[in-house]
């Protein structure tokens, strides 16, 4: 047995070498495969990181151009550059120069229309070397990967105030009026956006003008901005409404839908179905051979409806059930109430159009103005049952309309917006200007360069019992008790502010488009007062920042109408028109940051 065993061993001697040689082929093959696969793995890992970085960078760079072709060229160059920074040529002995190909794809919604999201897709490939697979004539393996960055598009409406208060004298430094400074700043602003972004333009005075529907062609927009001239009043409510309708019409719910409102002060236009005045009452009137010295030779009161003879005007102070009519500066006699006959026979008919403040924000009379079309193409409706309809335009409007209704034609509450906090402007659950008087509480800026250096900041009428009417509404005992009076500029501004805040609230309530309202406020123009809360509320800014007139010790307080469920916008305030370019640039930076 032992002999047999020894022989067997001797016979098996060559087998060990054979097995070893055979095993070596597999071992070497496995080792070679491990080395080659490991190399490919290392290269691919870096490639994935590099295409992701390239896609992100390309997405950022599409804002650098004015045309889509330029944008794609720039984005391609940026993608290549960022790819190379993360994946150097020859990394891990990779062969040749990697190819980098960016592609731009507009995502579509369920109905096939653009959703507002732009995908920037970067595909890169590179040849990975092989070491052991060379034996099998495989000299390289192509490794490729695709990175995708999604850029939220921008649909933005610029809403620019071109009211007459923007027509200031030229700045001694820049040589620009406020209107020109706004034009320059807005022009620069548009250039900061991508040609993939939709931008439109609404300008407004007493009428809102839709200059450009949102479009990716910004050249016409730039031209329209450069041609803006300023004049007339401030119908902010309609302008916001027109802008919002354009956002909805563009129909990109996943885009950043944004309104950028630039204004230099208080709104003073209300568009509503105003009830006809069919009851004679006593109200402020530009009449009586200029008892109001700011209205020389004003028109006489109208005749009683159905009569051809104008009545003998009677002067009385029955508008004022409070105290003598005296303005904030203690000047008497600047406003006269007249017994004013009714000019309409049917109280159920309405005038549709826009009324506005005319002149100063007086709390003791002065002029209101109307009716004007709220926007281009709209008409003014005049009931035929009223007399003197041919004299309707201008300051006579107070003779024809009974009162300012509680809501405007857009459904906005002209008494304010729901309050979420407390404060002096909160009343009856609303943040409201119902009880507000504007031409009081003068503050002077701690910065001597602010011009004008002092401005009225307004206050509650209850704190100023010796000034003016003491109230924005018709008093009890009068035919239209409880309604806003249309014959007092202070009231028109108060109702306009309420309506503007309400319009902004309505826009931000849209849960499909989630619009953001950003505001730039230039305080420095004209004699109009400044308001601390109004525009931060429009923007839904979390707190109420200081005005340029507030003392250094001013502490911001919580926005009493802040809505946590609605989008928060940016709010910038300045008294210096020369800062507008910077503020617009800052806003662009914020908008683009949110869109990335």
């Amino acid at each position, binding site marked *: 047995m*032992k002999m047999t065993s020894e022989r067997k061993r001797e016979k098996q001697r060559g087998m060990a070498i054979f097995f070893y040689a055979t095993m070596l082929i597999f071992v070497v093959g496995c080792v070679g495969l491990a080395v080659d696969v490991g190399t490919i793995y290392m290269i691919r890992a870096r490639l994935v990181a590099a295409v992701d970085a390239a896609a*992100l960078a390309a997405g950022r760079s599409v804002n*650098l151009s004015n045309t889509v072709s330029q944008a794609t060229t720039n984005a391609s160059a940026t993608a290549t550059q*960022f790819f190379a920074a993360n994946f*150097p040529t020859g990394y891990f002995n990779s062969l040749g120069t990697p190819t980098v190909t960016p592609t731009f794809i507009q995502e579509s919604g369920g109905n096939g229309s653009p959703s507002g999201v732009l995908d920037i897709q970067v595909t890169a490939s590179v040849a990975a070397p092989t070491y052991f697979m060379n034996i099998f004539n495989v000299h390289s393996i192509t490794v490729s990967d695709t990175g995708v960055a999604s850029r939220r598009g921008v649909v933005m409406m610029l809403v620019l105030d071109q009211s007459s208060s923007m027509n200031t004298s030229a700045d001694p*430094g820049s040589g620009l009026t406020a209107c020109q400074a706004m034009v320059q700043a807005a022009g620069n602003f548009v250039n900061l956006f991508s040609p993939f972004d939709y931008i439109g333009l609404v300008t407004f005075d007493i009428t809102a003008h839709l200059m450009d529907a949102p479009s990716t062609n910004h050249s016409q927009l730039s031209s329209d901005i450069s041609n803006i001239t300023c004049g007339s009043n401030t119908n902010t409510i309609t302008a916001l409404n027109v802008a919002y309708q354009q956002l909805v019409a563009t129909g990109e719910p996943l885009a950043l839908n944004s309104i950028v409102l630039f204004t230099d002060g208080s709104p003073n236009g209300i568009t509503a179905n105003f009830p006809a005045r069919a009851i004679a009452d006593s109200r402020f009137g530009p009449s009586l051979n200029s008892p109001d010295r700011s209205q020389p030779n004003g028109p006489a009161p109208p005749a009683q409806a159905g009569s051809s003879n104008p009545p003998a005007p009677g002067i009385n102070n029955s508008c004022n059930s409070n105290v003598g009519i005296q303005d904030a500066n203690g000047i008497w006699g600047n406003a006269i109430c007249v017994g004013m006959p009714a000019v309409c026979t049917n109280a159920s008919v309405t005038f549709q159009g826009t009324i506005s403040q005319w002149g100063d924000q007086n709390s003791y009379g002065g002029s209101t103005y109307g009716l004007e079309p709220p926007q281009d193409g709209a008409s003014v409706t005049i009931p035929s049952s009223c007399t003197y309809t041919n004299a309707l335009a201008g300051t006579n409007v107070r003779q024809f309309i009974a009162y300012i209704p509680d809501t405007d034609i857009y459904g906005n509450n002209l008494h304010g917006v729901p309050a979420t906090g407390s404060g002096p402007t909160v009343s009856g659950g609303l943040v409201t200007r119902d009880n507000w008087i504007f031409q009081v509480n003068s503050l002077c800026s701690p910065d001597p360069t602010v011009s004008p250096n002092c401005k009225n900041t307004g206050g509650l009428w209850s704190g100023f019992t010796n000034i003016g009417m003491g109230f924005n509404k018709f008093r009890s005992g009068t035919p239209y008790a409880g309604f806003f009076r249309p014959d007092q500029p202070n009231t028109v501004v108060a109702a306009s502010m309420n309506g503007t805040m309400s319009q902004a609230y309505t826009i931000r309530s849209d849960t499909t488009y989630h619009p953001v309202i950003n505001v730039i406020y230039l305080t420095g123009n004209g004699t109009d007062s400044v308001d601390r809360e109004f525009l931060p509320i429009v923007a839904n800014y979390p707190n109420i920042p200081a005005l340029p007139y507030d003392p250094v010790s001013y502490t911001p307080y919580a926005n009493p109408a802040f809505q946590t469920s609605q989008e928060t916008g940016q709010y910038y305030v300045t008294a210096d028109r*020369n*800062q507008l370019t*910077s503020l617009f640039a800052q806003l662009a930076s914020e908008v683009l940051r949110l869109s990335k």
Partner: protein
Amino acid sequence: MQTILDKKQMRRRKQGGNTILEFALVMVFLVPMFAGSFTIGLALAKDIQVSNVARDAVVLMVRSVTDPESGLDLSQTQNQRIIVRAASGLGMNSDAQQDPSSSGNAVVFLSKVVMVGPNECSLGVIPAPNGVPTTTGPGYGWNASNCANYGLYAFEYRVTIGNGTRWSSTLGSPPAGTVQANGTITAKNIATNTAGQVGNFSAVTGMTLSPSIFALVSEMYADVSFLNFFSILRNPTLYARSIS
């Protein structure tokens, strides 16, 4: 038979010493080879980890810097733990809850570098430094003189996580005092502080940025000398950079 068996036994006895000798000889080569394989293998694994941490950090930075409302403030320790946790095993933490250690074995530098353009100058030169208009018309308020960093690279952001005293960023550092608590640098310093320039940005990254375009750079250093048996690695420090 007996004779043949005895001869074989004697031969085996003689070979007994040879086996030990051969084993010893083989081990002289095998031990360094295994140690080298172990070191290089682990170092490779750690290198991949360092690269991944740098990449993760830059992704977090994209979110943090471009969307402050995300609340992902990387200057806050609780947010830095995300990065420290990704660097587990590299000696970056100071405690079990993954707080970064200022004397540990690793560091991550997060930088945002911008090519200062008209936007940065507009934002940084408000109003003109002396309060007096410097020019008129377009570009009012700033010019190449009062916006000293115009056309140059400058730091906009810097956060250092970990042992920032042992290593320094290849891009350099913004001047002390200009970096705010949350890592940002004021618009004024970006536009006007020449000490905040990143002179070697193109040399380091090979990139050229257009005006107002920024790059987010994450760099990580890690000391892996703890796995450097027989000092096989000449420089046991790993470095990775990710740019987005």
